[in-house]
């Protein structure tokens, strides 16, 4: 059992994948927080696709002018330029034409991706880029040069984010205020775009073009479900990035599957687990909150039942009049005792001062509705049931009273309680 964990750690390829993947995942998670909060996820996807043209261009230029084969920094620079060109094209087209930004992003990145694919296949005799490798990534085949490139970009990007944390925070949260205190909001936008491009470029060699956007946004979104502060969200996103890589790599070794796919699969499962059980924003928490909620209608029905009964009311009587599942009714009663609306007395329940007030209010609404329903010609046998539904609508009593012109008796001749 232990061997399943320790075994892979002996292998150099696994160590390199672990280190390289973790570096990339940490910085992707941190930057991803800003991407998620700014709703730039689609742009991240676009940048990853566009960079293939840059990689091909960088490869070609370095080979033709300097005779260097697969020069990593050259390709990095090329992809960065391609990313920036894509963003510039996107903002240009969406500014000068009526085409909206999401469509523009779609057009531009597929176009530039296509350009890259065509270029790679035309110059296949000069440049040796494996398109499959590019699209699927190869985390288990991380080269030393890849490690250095990703360490270098990660250092730069993390430094920028930490140094300008406040600036990014305010420019994301409230750009108008940021501009009003003299921050260069546009420059910060560009800086962030460059950071995202750098992260995407260094992550593509590990998980591939298609999955890289997941590495960018999924750990960040997972952290978003757990934290109410941006700094904590960033730390958590970094941690989730690392756990995705570690978990994914083991998954890949044990299942003998594709590396990038296993990493993203683990990352997504991790997200789903957090989505289910996050203490505040999780589905379970939400469900529990809803379940704990006692419907106002049940509360009001209990109050009026006790009021009508006139004395200490035993549970069976309440159950007889109040429509509610058995467990729910007990819960409602417990909650009402806690809220001080009713008190438990021997074999039943009695209204408290506040409860009496509330009950009067509902009763008043009920009788006013009955009087009004009769006035507008509702059949007599429907008066009670209809009024029983309508009495729970808030803020109607005074209106009805006004329309009825101050009646103090309902159709059954009972007194309508005065407001208090």
């Amino acid at each position: 059992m232990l061997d399943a964990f320790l075994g892979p750690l002996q292998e150099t390829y696994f160590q390199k994948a672990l280190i390289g993947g973790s570096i990339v995942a940490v910085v992707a998670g941190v930057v991803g927080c800003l991407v998620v909060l700014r709703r730039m996820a689609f742009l991240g996807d676009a940048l990853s696709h566009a960079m293939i043209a840059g990689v091909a261009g960088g490869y070609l230029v370095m080979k033709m002018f300097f005779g260097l084969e697969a020069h990593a920094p050259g390709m990095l620079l090329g992809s960065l330029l391609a990313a920036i060109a894509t963003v510039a094209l996107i903002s240009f087209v969406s500014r000068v034409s009526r085409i909206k930004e999401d469509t523009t992003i779609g057009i531009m990145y597929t176009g530039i991706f296509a350009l890259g694919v065509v270029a790679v296949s035309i110059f296949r005799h000069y440049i040796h880029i494996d398109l499959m490798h590019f699209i699927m990534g190869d985390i288990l085949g991380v080269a030393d040069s890849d490690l250095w490139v990703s360490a270098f970009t990660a250092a730069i990007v993390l430094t920028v984010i930490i140094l300008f944390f406040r600036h990014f925070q305010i420019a994301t949260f409230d750009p108008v205020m940021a501009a009003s205190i003299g921050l260069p909001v546009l420059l910060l936008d560009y800086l962030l775009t460059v950071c995202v491009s750098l992260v995407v470029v260094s992550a593509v060699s590990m998980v591939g073009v298609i999955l890289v956007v997941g590495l960018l946004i999924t750990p960040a979104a997972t952290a978003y479900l757990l934290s109410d502060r941006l700094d904590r969200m960033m730390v958590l996103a970094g941690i989730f990035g690392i756990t995705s890589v570690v978990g994914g790599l083991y998954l890949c070794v044990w299942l003998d599957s594709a590396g990038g796919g296993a990493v993203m699969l683990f990352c997504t499962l991790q997200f789903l687990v957090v989505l289910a059980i996050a203490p505040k924003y999780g589905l379970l928490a939400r469900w529990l909150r809803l379940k704990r909620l006692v419907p106002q209608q049940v509360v009001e029905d209990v109050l009026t039942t006790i009021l009508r009964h006139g004395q200490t009311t035993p549970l069976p009587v309440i159950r007889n009049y109040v429509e509610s599942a058995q467990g729910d009714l007990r819960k409602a009663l417990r909650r009402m005792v806690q809220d001080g609306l009713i008190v438990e007395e021997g074999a039943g329940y009695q209204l408290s001062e506040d409860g009496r007030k509330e009950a009067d209010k509902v009763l008043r609404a009920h009788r006013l509705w009955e009087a009004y329903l009769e006035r507008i010609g509702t059949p007599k046998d429907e008066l009670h049931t209809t009024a029983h539904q309508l009495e729970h609508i808030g803020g109607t009593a005074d209106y009805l009273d006004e329309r009825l012109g101050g009646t103090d008796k309902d159709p059954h001749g009972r007194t309508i309680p005065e407001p208090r």
Partner: protein
Amino acid sequence: MNTELAPDGRAKFAVDVQHLTVSYHARAALLDVSVGIEHDQLVGVIGPNGAGKSTFIKAILGFVKPDLGTVRINGRNVQKVKGQVAYVPQRGSVDWDFPITVQEVALMGRYQKIPWYQTPGRRDREAALEALEMVRMADFADRQIGELSGGQQQRVFLARALSQGSDILLLDEPFAGVDAATERAILDVLGRAKEAGKTLVVVHHDLATAAEYFDKLILIKQRMYAYGTPEMVLQEELLSKVYEGRLRIFADLKTGGASAGKVVETAKEESDA
């Protein structure tokens, strides 16, 4: 600088707009607007949709380059000195799910004064907390902003504006989409800010409450129609010119009583969207 000074040594006007003309694509958003807002006033900016109110806000924040004219804040050109006006955004423009706490929002008011290589210090935290206390939100310091009620949210942003330390606050529709009780609570905070020596410029939509809430009103629609006390501004003649007959009932607007008039939209298309 050739600005007149008030007896207490401050510039005569908190906000001094002279001949402000701003155009987009050869259409004037603001035309020759001149107004001098005195210190320690609660001023409402009113006008129909598309009247250039948001351009007016941008101009006071120094975001637009005027075709003609100047905006001076405390006697200093707004284009040259940033951050003199504290801005409170419209509720609808804020992402309430943003991972940020009440205290962090208040702390943002201090960001301008913190050099970029430093983190907020104890003094900044204290100033933020002080501002929160002033709007009675200190107890909520660690809450995420989305958990608050509408009025509380508005107060947090007021605290941010207060901790910014500027004596001029610009509020964009603070009463939009809040209930009557909240409106009262916000108004109360505005009043106390005014007492503390702030000048508040508030963009406001509801004519029915304008007279009651503000010391002075600015009525704009592209150009300046009136600036003065509510009695002076809420003249039937003026309003019918600005609102072009879309305002049916004028009676009682000036007194701001319970029977105050309503803005009635007729089928007439807006000509100036």
